[in-house]
């Protein structure tokens, strides 16, 4: 990976002139971490950054392309919860029919998870319609709450007098930036048209209905810009949106908006300051909860069915909720380290899962929770291969290679269907020449986890036979003999690969896309920071927030 200096520059509407300032960014790690990158430069200003509030400059030669994203359904609901006043907001969210983001790969933040089909566009319109209907039904109470200018017993002329201020203020919060002249005109004309035929209350409801499905609320738009060498520093309001979506799953809060307004969101120092501030707010728990829920495929359990004595309405609900709860625990109760996440034995147990966890077993961290075991299973049996492949792909970021083109899957494997345990039944995959190349390294990752059945309950036998949890692993630095899954997970948690993969997963979640070759430099920096902080997850998120990929984007072709 290479690094170079670039010229500093400013964007016209904020600074008004190009700046040409030599020097480099001397580092953005916390004071506890090792020091500067680059080849000298400005005097350190005491916080290790040395950028004196000047606009950030690129450290890497290139970054991956970023495509337009729509907010996920979770983010939409959170934005509404923060945008609308409490009473009306509660009623609106209860009536909301916004289409759920369906995760097919990666995270809910991925652009591909949030495309808009015909049915979804109808559902979005229905959603706005339904909330507007709720507003109208309770308008006497809701309108003064939503429009502070109005008081109880308001009249149509009162609404007329307040509408411009509402459009401007509410609109800026909904769109995460001030409205343009064109947008303001469009909305006031909408109000006038509806008011002329159906009255001011209907006009106000129409304005609300517009905002709830307007593309500036739904989409995270970032201008092409005109930065040098094909890269643009994001505008302050665009940085604010990225920060708020990462750290609160919602729109920018008042302090972030103030920072934008006052020109205090231009440098890496500024971004770091806001990132650390937001990490200390209650909203930051949402990122932890959502990320870990999705990373561990907790969404599978929403519609899952398991045929098992311990699969009840209560336990299934508990399993579906467990990963979010544990993500929250990691943020609020633990030391917030990767090691704790992977190896702790202190996760709290949901009451609804007491029977499942009561079956015993030696568990470690997130991977061995009942919810993860249940999500990586079939309806009435475990899935050794799926669990092993999951560890390779999602925990080590080393997915198994695709099926070779010359493998005949119709070919007959040695018939092991009479074997009582999954390990035995799948033994042929480790001895058949066409299969063994991949399966000898993959299957053993799942051997120890066979002690946890398809709802995550501990077991020692399968079909009357003792489950052999021993494994010989030979995967880079994860090598050796392991007596059970707990030993394996402890060793896994200590590998650089697992730590680096965790950083990569957070990168994917934050950016809403998989990494590309062009992200190699950025990811390298992020991983180094994470390692240097001894696996501190908060420091990882700060490192991502101040990275080139987060603060810049490629300059594409505009009209």
């Amino acid at each position: 990976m290479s690094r170079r200096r670039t010229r500093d520059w400013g964007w016209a509407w904020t600074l008004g002139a190009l700046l040409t300032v030599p020097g480099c960014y001397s580092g953005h790690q916390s004071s506890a971490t090792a020091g500067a990158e680059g080849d000298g430069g400005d005097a350190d200003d005491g916080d290790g950054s040395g950028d004196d509030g000047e606009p950030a400059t690129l450290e890497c030669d290139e970054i991956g392309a970023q495509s337009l994203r729509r907010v996920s359904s979770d983010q939409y609901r959170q934005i509404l919860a923060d945008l609308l006043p409490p009473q009306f907001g509660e009623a609106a969210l209860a009536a909301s029919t916004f289409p759920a983001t369906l995760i097919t790969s990666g995270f809910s933040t991925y652009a591909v998870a949030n495309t808009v089909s015909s049915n979804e566009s109808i559902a979005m319109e229905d959603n706005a319609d339904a909330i507007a209907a709720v507003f109208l039904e309770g308008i006497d109470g809701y309108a003064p709450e939503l429009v502070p200018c109005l008081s109880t017993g308001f009249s149509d002329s009162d609404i007329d007098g307040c509408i411009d201020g509402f459009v401007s203020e509410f609109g800026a919060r909904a769109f995460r930036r001030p409205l343009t002249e064109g947008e303001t005109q469009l909305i006031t004309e909408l109000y006038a048209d509806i008011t002329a035929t159906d009255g001011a209350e209907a006009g106000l409801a129409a304005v609300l209905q517009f905002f709830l499905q307007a593309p500036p609320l739904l989409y995270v738009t970032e201008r092409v810009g005109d930065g040098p060498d094909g890269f643009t520093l994001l505008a302050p309001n665009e940085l604010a949106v990225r920060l708020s979506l990462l750290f609160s799953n919602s729109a920018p809060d008042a302090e972030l908006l103030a920072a934008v307004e006052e020109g205090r969101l231009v440098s890496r120092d500024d971004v770091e300051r806001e990132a650390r501030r937001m990490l200390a707010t209650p909203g930051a728990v949402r990122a932890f909860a959502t990320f870990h829920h999705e990373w561990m495929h907790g969404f599978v359990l929403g519609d899952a069915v398991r045929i098992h004595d311990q699969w009840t309405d209560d336990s299934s609900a508990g399993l579906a909720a467990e990963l979010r709860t544990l993500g929250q625990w990691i943020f609020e109760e633990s030391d917030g380290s990767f090691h704790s996440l992977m190896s702790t034995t202190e996760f709290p147990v949901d009451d609804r899962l007491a029977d499942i966890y009561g079956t015993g077993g030696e568990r470690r961290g997130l991977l061995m929770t009942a919810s993860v075991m249940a999500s990586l299973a079939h309806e009435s049996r475990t899935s050794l291969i799926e669990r092993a492949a999951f560890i390779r792909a999602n925990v080590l970021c080393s997915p198994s290679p695709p099926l070779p083109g010359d493998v005949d899957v119709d070919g007959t494997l040695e018939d092991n269907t009479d074997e009582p345990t999954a390990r035995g039944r799948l033994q042929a995959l480790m001895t058949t020449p066409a299969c063994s190349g991949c399966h000898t390294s993959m299957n053993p990752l799942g051997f120890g986890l066979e002690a946890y059945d398809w709802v995550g309950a501990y077991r020692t036998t399968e079909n009357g036979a003792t489950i052999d949890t021993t494994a010989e692993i030979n995967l880079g630095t994860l090598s050796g003999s392991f007596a059970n899954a707990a030993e394996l997970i402890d060793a896994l948690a200590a590998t650089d690969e697992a730590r680096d993969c965790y950083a990569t997963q957070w990168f994917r979640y934050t950016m809403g896309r998989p990494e590309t070759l062009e992200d190699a430099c950025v990811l390298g920096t992020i991983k180094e920071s994470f390692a240097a902080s001894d696996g501190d997850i908060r420091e990882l998120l700060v490192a991502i927030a101040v990275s080139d990929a987060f603060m810049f984007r490629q300059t594409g072709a505009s009209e």
Partner: protein
Amino acid sequence: MRRRKFLMGAGGICVGLPMLRTFYDGRDARAAGGDNEPTRIITMAYPMGTHLPFWTPDAVGSEFNLGTITEPLAPFVDRCALISNCPHSVYDLGGGSYVYGHPAKKEGTLTGTLLQSAFTGDGSNTVENVLPDSNPGDEVQTPNGPSVDHVIGEGLITSQHQRASVDLGVAGAGGPAGVQNSSFFYEAAANPVTLSAHPGQAFVSLFSAVTPDDGEVDEVFMALQRRRKSVLDAVRESFVDLRQGLDASDRAVLDDHADKIRQIELDMPPLAACSLPEGIPEADEAYANMPMTEFGDLTNRLMAHAMGCGIAPVGRIEYTGQQNPYFGIPTVDDGVTALGGDWHQAVHADGVAPDADLRTYGFQFFVQQFADLMGYLDAIVEGPDGRTALDNSLMLLASDYGEGNGHASRDLCFVVAGGSGPGRRNFHFDGQNNTVNDVLTTLIQMACVTHKDGSPIEEFGLAGFGAAPISELLV
């Protein structure tokens, strides 16, 4: 349930359907405009294929006997064409893993192309861009083009339709599955259709606009419609402002969404006094442990009534339970249980005889559902001459495999049904010398959908692959 009524001509509200942008290679599709043309396309898709010796009729041509699995088609065979043994040769371009195994199969069945990851260059859906031996991998991906039903639908939609399509899923595991992404049906590359796999919710969504009784103007409702239309106008205009200063690919995403907003902007005409399906439970509990025999019947009735009410020109039903669906047929369910496994395993297991009842009647189930749907449509009269909804439909039954026991896709089979258009009926065609892309192209011609200039659409699916209509299937 909110009632919605849409009245023609009151207050100047009703406007014609705006021109729809096509997603199919930039060509606009339209119906050819003649009599006796299908007014709708209904596709039913299911996983795991069939057992060909029991599916395939005993002769090709017009004189044949149905197999055990296709026996349920008997009452309607005069309005059916069976196509057997058809290779999906486009997979050969993708390498070994495209020919064998499950990945990419559902996605390719009705789109006639490979997954997006199989393409290089500018990524467009052409033969020149295909990467040799790309291998689909195990992660869920999307195909590089729309499914044939979407293209046909673009040519059939009119201002009389309430929506572009009715999309229903049948969950296999007993219990409603809410909303799911389709694996077979796509509006465009990377844009799967979303299915409603909850009949109760689908009923509310589809039929809230039906007014089977009086036609009095409801002023409150009219006000609602004015507000909706004005808001949608403003939303669509706001896309114009937003796209300024974005790069080309981002603008394309917004343009696509804006097009869909345009599609919603309809002033719905009053729906005819069409009948509503009865006995569709609303509560989730009603669907707990519901077998597919019952779930599928509810879905069929919803679809038939939705089509009869003219809600959309495209109907899609997908059976989404591949691993272990609960059929509700003791021979099948008990047989699978006795194996100690699941339906998927039962289809592939070498220890189960190919002609075992549990497989035969499992495979037959899907053909039965298709036949039942035909029956419901045939019960809806759509014209003074006695033509029925079945007569006015083009229907397709498809699966991702031919012989389900194997993992290859060299022998797919289809049922094309319905009573209109130039498609041949009461006919069995052996497709071994054609490709699935030929079948899909033929289907477009059966639907009488052409380019905007009236010229026929000669190739569907992967461009440059060489698909062509099958003349033996057309009259």
